[in-house]
């Protein structure tokens, strides 16, 4: 009963406006850049700092020392439509080597290893407003692999698609994305965001064993579809909690049995669906 009362009170608080600020928290992950000096960072979301009214730098602090990464965002158009270009570079080899023995082989009897590589990324975001505080965003980006040496690592075909997407460029050589998002402000504390993305990754490639090509790795579909629905709850003027659910649809090599009328079965390849909770705490300042 006490929990129910708390839930009602919390819901009421969220749905009511707060005269002190009277402005909803800004939509995030849009084409908006700056102003200079503004910043935001989450536990999992990247650190983003505007070094100029039209230029932001972005990095994932949690990964920086094992997978150095930086993105720059350049505002090309400011108002009413905002167009932003993104360019980034990362080097994930060390982070990948840290999970050898788990996600990757240890290669205990050979010189095979995860190769050094650079991962450049380029993209465009276009955002516009609807109503007073709603924001729509369209995006397209592509990520590549520039090998700096021999590499024996192969795609994970992981059971959680987001990790396969993060490692798509390092392990398949390519990942592109087109997607869109809509961010609706209910009031000065609560936003709802929906996002849909279609990814295309590179092929699984060939299996290289001690420098020898032993043939093509079994193919899996390069198409991945994701959708995310989440809420942003303003905790203070400069912080928010984001929570949501991510759905991902991908070919993970799964099969399903279909039994015929004669009692005998056929095994057919199916795509897998993942549902993952998302949660973060984001600070932002000016």
């Amino acid at each position, binding site marked *: 009963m006490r929990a129910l009362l708390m839930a009602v009170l919390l819901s009421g608080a969220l749905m009511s406006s707060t005269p002190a600020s009277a402005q909803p928290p800004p939509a995030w992950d849009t084409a908006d850049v700056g102003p200079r000096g503004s910043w935001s960072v989450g536990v999992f979301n990247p650190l983003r700092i505007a070094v100029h009214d039209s230029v932001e730098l972005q990095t994932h602090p949690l990964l920086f020392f094992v997978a150095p990464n930086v993105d720059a965002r350049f505002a090309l158009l400011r108002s009413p439509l905002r167009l932003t270009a993104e360019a980034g570079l990362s080097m994930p080899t060390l982070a990948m080597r840290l999970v050898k023995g788990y996600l990757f082989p240890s*290669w*205990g009897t050979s010189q095979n290893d995860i190769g050094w590589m650079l991962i450049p990324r380029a993209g465009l975001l276009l955002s516009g407003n609807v109503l007073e505080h709603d924001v729509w965003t369209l995006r397209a980006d592509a990520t590549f692999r520039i090998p700096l040496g021999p590499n024996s690592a*192969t795609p994970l075909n*992981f059971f959680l698609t987001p990790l396969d997407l993060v490692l798509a460029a390092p392990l398949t050589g390519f990942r592109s994305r087109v997607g869109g998002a809509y961010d609706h402000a209910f009031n000065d504390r609560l936003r709802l965001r929906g996002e849909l993305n279609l990814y295309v990754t590179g092929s699984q490639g060939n299996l290289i064993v001690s420098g020898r090509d*032993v043939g093509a790795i079994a193919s899996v579909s390069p198409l991945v579809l994701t959708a995310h629905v989440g809420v942003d709850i303003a905790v203070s003027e400069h912080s928010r909690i984001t929570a949501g659910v991510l759905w991902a649809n991908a070919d993970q090599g799964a099969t399903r049995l279909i039994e015929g009328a004669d009692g005998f079965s056929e095994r057919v390849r199916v795509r897998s669906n993942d549902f993952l909770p998302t949660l973060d705490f984001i600070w932002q300042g000016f």
Partner: protein
Amino acid sequence: MRRTLPLLLLPLLLASCEWVADPMSFTREEVPRFKARAEHPAPAANPTSLKVMAWNVKYGACRIDFWFDFWGDRVQMSESEVTDCLTRVAALIREYDPDILMTEEIEVDSKRSAYVDQVRFLLENTNLRYAAYMSTWNSRFVPSEGVGRINLGNAILSRYPITKAERIRQEDRTDQDPLTSTFYIKRAIGRAEVDVGNGRTIAAYVVHTEAYDQDGTKQKQIQQIHEVLRAETLPWVIGGDFNELPPVCDERAAAGTPESCVGKLRLSGFLDERESSQGTEFEQPPYTPSVMKRFYDDFEPSISLARYGVGEENQRRYFTHSVLGPDSMNDQGLPGTWSRTLDYLFIRKGEVWTDTDVIQGPGRLEVQGDASRLSDHAPVVGTWRLP
């Protein structure tokens, strides 16, 4: 698994909408049956005997050395490596042309074997027309050495219709931490009822017991298999990889006593054991051949103990296993060769075997395929005169 995944990842393992690792919480359950799409020759009507083969096919890897063998470090194969190997495996099976094949370590949608449906492959490329697959290891992702998705098990293939198939759960190991255990193989006895015509049904069994336990799990599994067979009411045949030596002697007997294994049966120090495996979870545990004695006492083996003989020179002809293939050298510079017997065929006591052998290489029972290059186990075969 050499190392376990940090517990921090555990919540993620449960976050998806399917089990990451199938707990296989059944005691006894029916399993799917399959039939060949290709037109194969019909078997003899009302047979008086059945040709039987038991073969651990090493997931279509032939002699590629995988990481847990310590002679190599492969974790996956290309599609052509798997299909090339299975093509040669199927050719040997066609040469012998069994009526019933019991096979272990066969996979259906596993990353390491290029997601090839190996049961379907053997169905379409041999004269066997029906199959039942008993999964014993089904994980969406095994977080060890990049093994990834795996679905490994045992299968029974038959030229005669399989009318019912089931798996019977075996005991799990108790010497692993919970996370490793979650992602580990869940052993099961496979059973299929085969309609051989004229109102006669036989039961075929396939087994693959534990290889690396240090807690007596394998011995318990072998005992359970014995009990299941004793309770079987149909005429039956069992084949499989028992991971245990024949009971030529009693490993517990002191040297110099009549039951001692000294000079009669090699229990350790096989030439295919790599030193670097010592102390790991893939170190070969001590063999306990005495646990197989009740099988020889109560059932009819395809190779009797009298024929098997005493000492390596006599027994060599019936060895069925070697981790190391003939094209690889061990630490002493010796090529791999069959080094011990782990695979068996049994029928009910008093029934009759004919033409039994181990197809170790070209020429045995006129088969020209070279099994020593097709798996780390040799096929065990025989003709079972139906009761």
